[in-house]
C-alpha cells in the first residue's frame, strides 16, 4: 500500500483523485476497501473519512489505519454537519441508493465540492438491448439480472445532469468513461456522451 502514483488505482478513481487538492478534508461515501481513501491520505495528505456499507470492508479500512464508519449514504449522511468537508466523493454508488436526490442534496450540503461517478443507462448498448432483445439490459458495466441488481435507481447522463441542476448544483467538470477508464472531457448537455459513454464523472458544487 505504498504506491506513490495513481497507477494502482482503478482509472475512474484515479481521475477523481486528480480533482482533489492536497490537504483537503475529504469524505468518501461508499469507500469500499479504502483504496482511493488510502491513496489520498498517503499521497495527497488529505484529512480523509469514509462511510462504507459492508462491515467487512470497514474492518479492512480501519485495519489499514483509515477513519471509516459503517453506514449507508441514505441513512447516515444526514448526521453530518454542513460545509465541514472540502470534498465529498460518491463513486459508482448513487444508482444503488434509495433516495438519490436526497443523497445528492446531502453531498452538496456537506462538501464544498462533490465528485460523483455513475454508470450511464443511456449507453447505446443498453438502449439497443432493450429495443431489440425486449429484456432488461445486462451489459459489461451493468451485469446484473433485474431481480438481483443492487442498482435500483439507474439513470442516464442526461437524467443526472437534470437532477444536479434541480438541486442547484453547478457542474464544474464532466468526464466520459469507457468502462472504467476516462475517455475524455465531455459537455454534460451534449447528446453524444449520453449515447456513447458507459459512465461519467461529475465535479459539482452548490451554486
Amino acid at each position: 500500500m505504498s504506491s506513490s502514483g495513481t497507477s494502482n488505482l482503478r482509472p475512474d478513481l484515479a481521475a477523481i483523485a486528480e480533482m482533489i487538492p492536497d490537504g483537503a478534508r475529504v469524505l468518501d461515501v461508499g469507500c469500499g476497501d479504502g483504496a482511493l481513501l488510502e491513496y489520498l491520505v498517503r499521497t495527497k495528505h488529505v484529512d480523509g473519512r469514509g462511510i462504507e456499507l459492508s462491515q467487512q470492508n470497514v474492518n479492512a479500512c480501519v485495519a489499514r489505519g483509515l477513519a471509516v464508519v459503517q453506514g449507508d449514504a441514505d441513512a447516515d449522511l444526514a448526521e453530518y454537519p454542513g460545509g465541514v468537508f472540502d470534498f465529498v466523493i460518491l463513486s459508482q454508488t448513487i444508482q444503488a441508493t434509495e433516495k438519490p436526490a436526497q443523497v445528492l442534496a446531502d453531498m452538496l450540503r456537506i462538501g464544498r465540492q462533490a465528485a460523483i461517478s455513475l454508470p450511464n443507462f443511456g449507453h447505446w448498448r443498453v438502449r439497443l438491448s432493450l429495443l431489440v432483445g425486449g429484456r432488461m439490459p445486462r451489459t459489461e458495466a451493468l451485469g446484473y439480472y433485474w431481480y438481483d441488481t443492487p442498482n435500483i435507481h439507474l439513470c442516464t447522463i442526461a437524467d443526472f445532469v437534470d437532477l444536479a441542476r434541480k438541486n442547484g448544483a453547478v457542474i464544474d467538470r464532466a468526464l466520459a468513461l469507457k468502462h472504467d477508464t476516462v475517455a475524455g472531457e465531455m459537455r454534460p448537455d451534449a447528446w453524444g456522451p449520453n449515447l456513447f459513454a458507459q459512465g461519467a464523472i461529475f465535479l459539482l458544487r452548490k451554486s
Partner: protein
Amino acid sequence: MTETANPRFLRPLSAPGADAGKAVSFGPDKPLALDCGRILSPFTIAYMTYGTLNDAKSNAILICHALTGDQFVASDHPVTGKPGWWTMMVGPGKPIDTDRFFVICANVIGGCMGSTGPADTDPTTGKPFALDFPLVTVRDIVRSQAMLLDALGIETLLAVTGGSMGGMQALQWAASYPKRVRAVMPIACAARHSAQNIAFHEVGRQAIMADPDWKGGEYQLHGTRPSKGLAVARMAAHITYLSEAALQRKFGRNLQNREALSFQFTPDFQIESYLHHQGASFVDRFDANSYLYITRAMDYFDLAEDYAGHLADAFRDSPNRFCIISFTSDWLFPTVENKRVAHALNAVAAQVSFVEIKTDKGHDSFLLDEPEMFDTVRGFLNSVATGVA
C-alpha cells in the same frame, strides 16, 4: 504525594512472586473532589505499568478496566494467581504492543485491588468506610486517573482504551480531557447505561444486600462476608456477558457429572455448575461493597446528560481520533448504542472509525480471541502512533 512499591490488598496473595505493581497516595494537599459533592482525601491509586515510557513521554496508553477487572492487564494476578485479563491484546508484539507502548492501568477508586474503596479504613472514624464511602462516578474515576498521570509526569496520552465500563472511561476522557489524549478507543460500551443494564445491576445489588452476612454493609466489623449474595450477583451479571447462542453452543442442556436428571435442586446442568463456579471464584477476589459502588458508577453514567442531552456537544471541536468497536451478539452494550456514539462524533465531524465485529460470544467478546478486533486495534494504534491517516 507518596509512591509505594507494594499496594495493600484485601485478600492474601496466592502468587506472591507476581508483580504487585505500584501505588500512589495523594495526601491532603491533593484532594479528589467528587461529583457527589464530597471530597476524597487522602486516597490511593494502585496501578500497573508495562513497557517503557519513551524520553518524549509520547507513547503512553491508558487502559481502563471493566466493572470487575483490575490493573493486572497483562501479567499474573498476585491475588488469584491467574493470567492478566487482556493478555491476548496487551504484551510484547501484541496489538497493544508493550515493546512499543508504555501501558498504564489503574484500579478504579471504589475498587478493591489497592485503590481506595469502601473496604479501606475511614481516617475520620478508624473503621472501614463501608457505606460511608462516597459514591463515585465514571467522571470521578477519570479525574483520579488524570491525577495519577500528573504524578507520573505524563501530560499527554497516545491513547486511552477499555471495554465495557473501561470504554465509558475512555469516552469520559475524550469529554473531560480532550487535549490530554490523542486517540480514544472505546470497545463494547455506550455513552449511557441503559434501563435494562441498570435493572440487572439492581438485581445484583439487592442480592448482596439480602445476604444476612452483608450486615448493612458493615460485614468487616462483624467478621462476616456476604459471599452468597455476591456470588448470585456475579451469576446474574455473568449471563449478561454471554449470548444465548454461545450458552447453547457451549453448554446446551448437557448434564454435569451425571447420566440422568436428579429430581433434586442440586446442579444438574453444566450451565448451572458453570455459573456456580463463576460466582464462587468471584467472591474470593472481590469485595461486595466495591461491587455496589462500581455498579452504581456505571448506572450514573450518561455522557449526554452533562451536555444538556446533546451527546455530540461532549465531543465538539474534539482533536481526538476515535475508533469504536462493537460486537454483533453483545446485548448488554449493543451495536446500536456504540453507533450512537459514532453518530454523535460524525455530527461534530470528529475523526471516527466504527467497526462491528461479527461473533456469537456476546459482551465478553472484547476479552476473547477475536482476530478482527486485534487487526482493528493494531491498525488503528499504528496509524495513530505513526501519524498516518
